[in-house]
């Protein structure tokens, strides 16, 4: 029965793989060919880890298939040793070989975790552009302290320049993630987490929240735009000319739970990031919500 099964089984697997490649053909794979340098380093780390593990996994798969097939009951030619139950030699092998692989992986983990620490500055000739991110009930607010402007659901920064994100929230926990540029970081109320990314080439990248935060979570997407230096200047000028102002009052309206809405800009900012961050220290949250 077993061998009769091998042909349909292998045909099924090949057919399934072909079906998958056809179906997945259309989409982009930001995690496999990222645009940001940090994303590239994280992908290389992923690939290296997978290859290290394949050293053990592939032989195990082959061993299972061979042993499972060769020692089937029908094959009476195979050796049969019903009472062979222990051998120090084999035990030593499969305690020590995985241990060595894990030691290599552990060294790789220790160095890569420190190297790719999201809170770590990027040493780059240009000084970093600081962008303050606030996760609101189902929309993203971006504040530019130096430029004195703010935007919703769209963040722009010069290409080939380090970006220093300071992230907080005025909503249930979210996670700020631009897959094409690099790893995500949680956005939490009363906490300021930081993330350092860089986009060597100009381009538009999809960004979204990666942690469920209520009904509008699926809509919480934004576009991250890496621009040439002069394009970025024009973008800042357009935002300044938008005429809307981010004041404590307009911020309060914005922070109301609502659908994500269109991209919009604020020419001036009088509700700074620190005010949002510290608004959670003193007031009990119930008053905080009522007075919106």
């Amino acid at each position, binding site marked *: 029965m077993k061998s009769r099964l091998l042909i349909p089984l292998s045909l099924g697997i090949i057919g399934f793989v072909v079906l998958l490649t056809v179906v997945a053909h259309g989409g*982009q794979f930001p995690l496999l060919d990222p645009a940001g340098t940090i994303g590239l380093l*994280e992908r290389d780390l992923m690939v290296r880890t997978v290859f290290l593990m394949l050293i053990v996994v592939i032989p195990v798969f082959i061993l*299972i298939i061979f042993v499972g097939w060769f020692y089937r009951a029908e094959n009476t030619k195979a050796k049969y040793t019903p009472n062979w139950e222990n051998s120090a030699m*084999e035990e030593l092998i499969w305690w020590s070989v995985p241990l060595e692989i894990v030691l290599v992986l552990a060294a790789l983990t220790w160095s890569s975790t420190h190297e790719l620490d999201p809170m770590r500055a990027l040493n780059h000739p240009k000084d970093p552009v600081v962008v303050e991110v606030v996760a609101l009930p189902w929309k993203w607010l971006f504040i530019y302290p130096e430029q004195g402007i703010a935007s919703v659901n769209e963040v722009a920064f010069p290409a080939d320049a380090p970006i220093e994100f300071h992230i907080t929230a005025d909503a249930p926990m979210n996670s700020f993630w631009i*897959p094409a540029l690099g*790893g995500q970081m949680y956005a939490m109320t009363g906490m300021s987490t930081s993330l350092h990314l860089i986009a060597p080439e100009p381009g538009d990248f999809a960004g979204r929240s990666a942690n*469920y935060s209520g009904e509008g979570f699926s*809509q919480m997407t934004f576009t991250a735009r890496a621009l040439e230096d002069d394009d970025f200047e024009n973008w800042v000028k357009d935002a300044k000319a938008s005429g809307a102002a981010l004041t404590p009052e307009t911020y309060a309206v914005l922070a109301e739970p609502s659908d994500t809405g269109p991209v919009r800009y604020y020419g001036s900012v009088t509700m700074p990031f620190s005010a949002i961050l510290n608004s959670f220290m003193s007031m009990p949250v119930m008053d*905080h919500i009522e007075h919106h």
Partner: protein
Amino acid sequence: MFGILTPEAFIHGPIETGAQLIVVGGALSVVLLLTITKRWKWLWTEWLTSLDAKRIGIMYLILAGLMLARGGVDALMMRSQQAVAVGAGTGYLSPDHFAQVFTAHGVIMIFFVAMTFMFGLINCILPLQIGTRDVSFPLLNSISFWLTATGAVLVNLSLVVGAFAATGWLAYPPLSEIAYSPGVGVDYYIWALQISGIGTLLAAVNFIVTIIKERAPGMTLMRMPIFVWTVLGSMLLVLFAFPILTGTMTMLALDRVLGMHFFSTDLGGNAMMYVNLIWAWGHPEVYILILPAFGIFSEIVPVFSQKRLFGYTSMVVATMAIVLLSFGVWVHHFFTMGAGANVNAFFGIATMVIAIPTGVKVFNWIFTMFRGRIKYTVPMLWFMGFLFSFILGGMTGVLMSVPAVDFQLHNSLFLVAHFHNMVIGGVLFGYFCGFAYWFPKIFGFGLNEMLGKVSYWLWIVGFAMAFIPLYILGMMGMTRRLDFVDAASGYHPLLVLAAVGAGIIALGAAAQFICYAVSTFERKRHMDRTGDYWNGRTLEWSVPSPAPFYNFAHIPTVHGRDAWWTMKEKKQTHEAGYQDILLPKNSCVGLLIAGFSFLFGFGMVWHMWWLLPVSLIGIFVTIVVRSFADETEYVVPAHLVKATEQRHHK
């Protein structure tokens, strides 16, 4: 009087009303059937008040089957919603309803399918394997089952009245705090987990004492079957992990009811601590589920390779290494919270170290098969399915234990595919394998092999087709818990494929149900006359099938590992003559305590405060009355034992 319970709580949208009708209709039809066939008395004496571990085990298995159906429907709703919803608001489920579905799916599958299935198999088989007539505390065993059943009732009651939590199966604050989740959903979640959690903890105490104190003479620790070792490891993990869940749920309940500030966003509360504490329980929980599955494989691989288990000591060391290490890894669930490189690296490396003992187990199974005579019965097929799925799942798990890689893969569908590889491919396949292997011992007749294989292959194909696309979607940057996707994202075709896969899994589950029904009808054809259906190696195969209510007429003395195999080889016969046997009488204390706990939970959910003292006094009175019961055991006369034994061996 009714707290915040109002008639509106009974009215829902179209889909929930459908679910309401199924739940209420199902319950009513059972009541009707029992009244027509006049089987209330039989139900009360044979099942509801029974203290026989085997009966309680069968009730656990039935509860697990019902909850698997409920959790499976949730899964189908999620897959079909994502396959249909392209663009905002296009799916048939509203975002809030979709959130309730994936939260209920997680809670039901982990707490009321996997844990109940595990306790079902343990209750049916463990006492037989260690050669004892009952667990150490039979009444506590009944109380534990009925508390778990109460938790399941509370979760499903949220379909009928009120709503369930819409926060994800671990209900992270601030979303689960009263400010952002004002409804009763999170309260249903908390009290279903608290009540079933206490039941699980008491069951763990029961089985730890049973394994350590009730083994047959001669069965030293190193002669116990590996399934008993893994259950001991799993119960120790329950003993040490569930109190952390109880503490964390208490703090969340106090935040919501008394306005405390453990995890609130203001006045010093710290939501990150909830994440830390819930995962300090969360990770040991997944090892609680997988260890007995490892134990089941260590039982069936030797039997179907017709060879002794390879490396018994190494398996025991690996099990206990996993038990200890599982308490040192929980931060890999929140690397992206930003605890700093030192913390992330330490816990990432600890996670990899756990892969070593797990790998050792796989090698020991393979070398049990090496130079054996492998019979590909249905249990052995489930084991092969487990092997391939679990190794892929283990690889993706170790991949995500590297923090810098996890920053990209956290909360993505890659993660979802990984843990389904471990929970379906590992835990569920393990328990299906155990159920198919011990079905003859529990019910007395074998399962239809052909239908068993059909359902196996449907499960395997459906499982691969449903979750391999999710790995690919994870690489495309799709996160979990999305109730719609954009057309431009290119995710849609793969989601349709995954939905087809989920449909095939549903066919597989249906085929299993048909297999059980057909096997019951044609049970005459494959009765288990000898009690040793698979030419087994451990003590449960030394008694007739289904095992008599007293388990062993003569408590066996054990002379080595694979106790039944050595007894068969030595043709060891037990001494002649039968003695009276003492067994625990039926008791309704389990039902009463669970009923009062239900009132307590319902009162907490709907703020009917008067119910709390009433239910607590009820429990106190029940215990006091029980303390006066002196004749808690009845005698099984020797001649009845003799008659039962002879009827089986004719």
